[in-house]
């Protein structure tokens, strides 16, 4: 049976935040996260401003579920994923050519609909019908793969990724986490966080994830006007693979992130959604094409739901 359009509005229309959240399951059941400080004493740290290394890369991705289709037996999620990078060099931010792919999560062979071609992305589970949630996760995975692939092509310099550090690369890499579901610090140490002033950070502490050891710290971004928001606002957790350079990167991060913090007037996700990344996200969404237009093409080729 041919594919029919099942729904043009699957689950979430667009995943904005990406992997910004820590997976809640990091936390040990019942107990607190095993705390291991990497710097002493446990007090707020500042650092003199340093020039940014060049090149400096910001990588981010975006995904969009475009339609659920159905052939009478299985559901397939058609979506679009995009990844792009912004490079800082020579005093200016430059957008690198983004990558955009259309994927059919659960498809076994390419599906061409007019000018749109959805590449197959088979999921584990064989021929079993997949739940919409599993399909959405598949799309997220496709985006993560695309981001990773793109990041591999970026040579030299410092790479900054939105979310936890998962990829492995030759040069230094910083990941930043904007929302904080998991608690990494015991309560007495956590007391330091509300006292952080903009541009200050906590000492580094160790994070273990997926067999990797990472150094992590919290830093406070400026969020005007100061002092009228809850103390958690403007908080960023930054991590980098544990190495001798980690301390230098932690100090550099104080010159980097506060300067790139977005302003609440312009971005509802301020200040954590960094300026170049905000621009990159807009650009990626543009490159995915008009949602209405895609919907129209899909409806034309696949008929009504």
């Amino acid at each position, binding site marked *: 049976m041919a594919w029919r359009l099942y729904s043009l509005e699957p689950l979430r229309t667009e995943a904005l935040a990406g992997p910004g959240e820590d997976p809640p399951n990091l936390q040990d059941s019942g107990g607190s996260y095993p705390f291991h400080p990497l710097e002493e004493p446990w007090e707020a740290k500042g650092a003199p401003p340093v020039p940014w290394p060049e090149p400096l890369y910001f990588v981010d991705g975006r995904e969009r579920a475009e339609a659920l289709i159905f052939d009478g037996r299985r559901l397939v999620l058609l979506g679009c994923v995009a990844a792009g990078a912004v490079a800082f060099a020579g005093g200016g931010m430059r957008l690198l050519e983004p990558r955009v792919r259309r994927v059919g999560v659960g498809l076994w062979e390419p599906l061409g609909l007019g000018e749109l071609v959805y590449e197959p992305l088979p999921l584990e589970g064989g021929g079993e019908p997949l739940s919409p949630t599993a399909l959405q996760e598949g799309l997220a995975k496709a985006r993560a793969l695309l981001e990773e692939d793109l990041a591999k092509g970026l040579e030299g310099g410092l790479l900054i990724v939105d979310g936890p550090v998962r990829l492995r690369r030759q040069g230094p890499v910083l990941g930043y986490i904007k929302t904080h579901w998991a608690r990494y610090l015991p309560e007495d140490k956590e007391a330091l966080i509300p006292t952080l002033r903009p541009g200050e950070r906590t000492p580094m502490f160790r994070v273990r994830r997926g067999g990797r050891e990472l150094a992590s710290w919290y830093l406070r971004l400026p969020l005007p006007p100061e002092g009228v928001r809850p103390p958690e606002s403007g908080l960023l957790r930054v991590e980098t693979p544990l190495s001798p350079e980690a301390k230098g990167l932690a100090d550099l991060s104080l010159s980097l992130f506060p300067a790139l913090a977005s302003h609440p007037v312009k971005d509802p996700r301020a200040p954590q959604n960094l300026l170049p990344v905000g621009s*990159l996200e807009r650009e990626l969404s543009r490159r995915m094409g008009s949602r209405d237009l895609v919907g129209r093409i899909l409806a034309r080729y696949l008929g009504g739901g």
Partner: protein
Amino acid sequence: MMGGPENGQRIGVVLGRREATPLEFWVGVEGEGLLRLDDLVVVEGYHPKVGRVRYFGMVDHVAKAHEGESYDTDTFLAVEGKIPVSLAYVAHVSVTRIVPEEFFPPDPGSAVYLAQGEDLELALYYEAMKNQRGSTKLPAGFLKNGEVAYLNLEFLNGVKGGHVNISGISGVAAKTSYATFLLKSLLESGVLEDAHQARVLLFNVKGEDLLFLDKPNLRLSPEARRDYEKLGLDPGPFRSVYFLAPPKKGGEGILPNVETRMEGVKAYYWDLVQFAQKGLLPFLFADRGGMSNLGYLIVHVTEKLRRLAEGQKGPHLLVSDWPGAELPEEITFDDLGRVRLKSFAQLVQYLEYKLLGPEGGKGEGDSTWVARQARGTLEAFVRRLRSSVENVGHLIRGDRPGNPPDPLSGSHQVHVVDLAKLSPQAQMFVVGSLLSDLFAKKERGQYRGRVFVVLDELNKYAPRDEESPIKDVLLDIAERGRSLGVILIGAQQTASEVERRVVGNAAIRVVGRLDAAEAERPEYRYLPTSFRQRALILPQGAVILHQPEIPVPLLLRFPFPAWATKREEVLEDNSAEALRREFF
């Protein structure tokens, strides 16, 4: 980046985000491309049912903007290197021509080329500017890219259209400069085929700017000289110019009332017989329209005067029906006992006697003169006449044979008539008299060549809201002149104050620097918005020219005058020959 239409330089593509139509479209400029206002471009379109179509157009709006910025302050972030932006450089093109005329839109994404060479000629319809006898491309200045701009002579000389109208504020707009440049081109470019027969009547309304047209300009730079050569014109002054100025008031003899130019200026004036025979009386009444009875009386008295002067030789006017007892003292008789009127003042006194009767008395005027008009009308007429004595007494005289300007006679091609020192009433009188005389002669076929009349301050002579005999003459010229070979090159600060039909009949419209409020008036609606904005900031030496064939106006630069426009600019001829002429 070569290739495409006639090897023009590729400059960008037709934009798809904004509508592309057969009459206008937007262009995205690519790479290092440069596209400016007034640049001419060409785009090729294709449709299987029609084939290849080429769109020629002119850039009338260019803009740059940062894409990817949602707030104005994002620019600061971009400058600091915190966000990436891309620079969009776009231009709006007004289509001037489609070849062949198939009005379907160009495809977004089509390559856009700069129009050069033949393409440029096509874009501006130059190749169509010709008749059976040859090219009618009259050099009109330079385009922004330095190429010569042309206007179609057939829209100036009366064949397809005629008349030029120039608007612009004083001082910077260079109305007179452009008018004289146009004359230079008309007379010397060789495009007007009977140029040697053409005559020019130039009215000098301000200062003495036009009294040095025959003198080379000291400040003419080598670049300006090259400009003239590029236009195919001689970088020198006008060759055949005759200067006329009103006589000085009072004093002995008749000397032209000029200050900066001493030699070669003749005084002009009418004698009383000419005044009567030519029927010039109405031109002393600029406000006739207000009272229709007065208008009737003027016509009647004019006719009476004409009959009175019949057969007389002048300069004085002889009248036989003014009894001696009533005469003022200084008036004399001739051999036959007729009264000899030797000045305009005396003529006015005579008319007063004829219309109102003996001075101081309650008598009645001569019934053949009065024409049954009420005494109030007669008194109004006399009052006006009396007040004009001071204004035109030196221009209308009975003491010597008249020397009124006559651009159609004599050997000089250009006649400059100075009005600057005259009162408004006298200016009206001179302009009205000259133009009506000239028009009447052309109507009777007394002169074959074309006559170009240059008149500034049209708002004074043909005001929108008032009636006057001068306005009637100008309207006549505007409406019928082109078929008779009388071409008006009129100018004014504000076209909105000039009679619509006078401006409306001009095929060629020129705009110099405009006042901001003036530029918004409907008279300038033929200019696209961008041109109206630019008219506010036009530099000296630049004008916007609109001609019927080209749907967009052209911004032109014209060369610095090769003739002096004031005493200080006169290039003194100190050669031995010239000095010899001067002293011996």
